């Protein structure tokens, strides 16, 4: 956007006015535009895309408000009393603390940034990021409902998700300074109003949420799930295929158990891989994390999370299911 920012502009027609005028033109010309875009596949993509954005936005807004509240009201002293000083212990405590955030992935990203700003060790904050969408009460209840009577699945999901988060947290700790995490510089906090900070966090994460939603909608529209059936019978390939499906489909962690339960041709272990990978890492989260913490960080973090999640889920499936 650097070019746009420096582009010469008329005194009466600034950037904001151009955006407003284009929006107005589309509203006026909506009937004409609708005919031009009249293709079934494209309309289906549009519905999926808007659905993901509409579903995620309230959670993202809750996340940025919570993040701004953490910055404003949670003192570093209070955080230090809650989370152990020693980062090796702080990682599992942060993972278990994820039980307390009944939101989805989108809320966790800005909250993690807020916790880091308050001085939480980055390994502990990233553990929280991985655990919060997977082990909160809403997810536990929906998993129990979707897999009625199969309590082993609920325990396996919560356990494997927590273990994944903690293992990745310790890995971050071991990487130490070599894990390059870009934090954007913030204005002096006393200069930034509460709403200003929340708005800025929203603008920052929202664009990357939209990129993730575009990709997830394309996968859900254009790739039929039946291509998965070819490998359903094979134990390992089936599990890897559902892990990949969880990454690209980017479903909300509150609803993915229902989709997993409907994949009846797959083994329970493969379904568990789907349930553990999805909340920890998917295309939407990868996009938001690369926006929040830098591309270089995401290039390292995303594959590590995927590998750890798949291995942990396979082990849990072998032990518990």
């Amino acid at each position, binding site marked *: 956007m650097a070019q746009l920012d420096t582009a010469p502009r008329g005194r009466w027609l600034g950037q904001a006015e151009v955006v407003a005028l284009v929006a107005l033109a589309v509203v006026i010309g909506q009937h004409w535009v609708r005919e031009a875009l009249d293709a079934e596949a494209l309309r289906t993509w549009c519905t999926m895309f808007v*659905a993901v954005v509409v579903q995620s936005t309230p959670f993202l807004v809750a996340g940025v408000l919570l993040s701004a509240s953490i910055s404003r009201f949670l003192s570093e002293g209070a955080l230090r009393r809650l989370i152990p000083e020693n980062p090796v212990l702080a990682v599992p405590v942060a993972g278990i603390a994820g039980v307390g955030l009944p939101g989805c992935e989108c809320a966790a990203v800005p909250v993690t940034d807020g916790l880091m700003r308050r001085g939480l060790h980055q390994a502990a904050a990233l553990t929280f990021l991985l655990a919060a969408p997977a082990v909160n009460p809403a997810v536990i209840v929906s998993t129990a409902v979707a897999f009625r009577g199969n309590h082993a699945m609920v325990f396996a999901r919560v356990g494997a998700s927590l273990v994944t988060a903690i293992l990745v947290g310790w890995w971050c700790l071991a990487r130490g300074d070599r894990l390059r995490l870009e934090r954007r510089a913030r204005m002096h906090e006393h200069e930034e109003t509460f709403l200003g900070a929340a708005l800025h966090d929203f603008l920052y994460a929202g664009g990357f949420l939209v990129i993730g939603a575009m990709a997830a909608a394309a996968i859900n529209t254009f790739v039929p799930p*039946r291509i998965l059936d070819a490998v359903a019978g094979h134990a390992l390939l089936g599990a890897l295929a559902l892990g990949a499906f969880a990454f690209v489909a980017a479903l909300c962690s509150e609803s993915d158990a229902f989709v997993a339960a409907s994949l009846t041709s797959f083994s329970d272990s493969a379904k568990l891989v789907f349930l553990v990978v999805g909340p920890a890492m998917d295309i939407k989260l990868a996009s938001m994390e690369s926006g929040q913490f830098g591309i270089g960080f995401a290039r390292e973090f995303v594959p590590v999370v995927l590998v750890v999640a798949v291995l942990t889920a396979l082990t849990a499936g072998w032990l518990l299911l």
Partner: protein
Amino acid sequence: MSAKTQGVVVALLAAVLVRLALTGEYLRFVLPWMRWPLLITGLVLLVMAIRPALGLGGSAERVPWATWLLLLPVLIVFAVAPPPLGAYLAERRSAQPPPRPASQSVVRVHHGGGPVDLGLDEFTWGAAQPDDVMGLTGATLRVEGFVSTDHQGGWYLTRLVIFCCAADAVVERIKILGHPAPPRDQWVRVTGVWVAGTGADPATPPEMTATQVVDLPPPKNPYG
């Protein structure tokens, strides 16, 4: 992106959320309980955006280029007005077996009298049970859904079930026999009789022999 543009972009997104919630169009995308969260979110975003949008403040802090993409959902909602998901998705996902309904009270169908109204999910659930616990055999049933087709010229009474948003839609369908196919995506009410024994295997939908097919207007909430 200038502070003023940031405000305008967020205000437009807020307006879309409020519009979807007020017009009921949100039901094409998410579950009914999302109405109030969407309204509140829209209002919170408006409060956050109003000062920068009017040029009364806000920070000129840089935002990434991706922020421009927040305009995309706004433009799509106004320009495309995305319709509810329908036959296109149902046909592409048709190989996916329907889910076992989460909590299903057993409705016993009473014989005699007029036709019995049944939800499509109740029908497929009843057909999948081993010894016809619902007593579907021989009863005249009435089920609603939209029309989808297959490559062999058959047609299906179809519903999409969503659990969170439209992206996780799962297909439930009944194959209809004995009546020519209405246009795809047309909502219909089919009166007919279950072909006893079909639908036990979750991979193939149950079948129904239709005696009457009536067109319906699309419902407000397109997902069941």
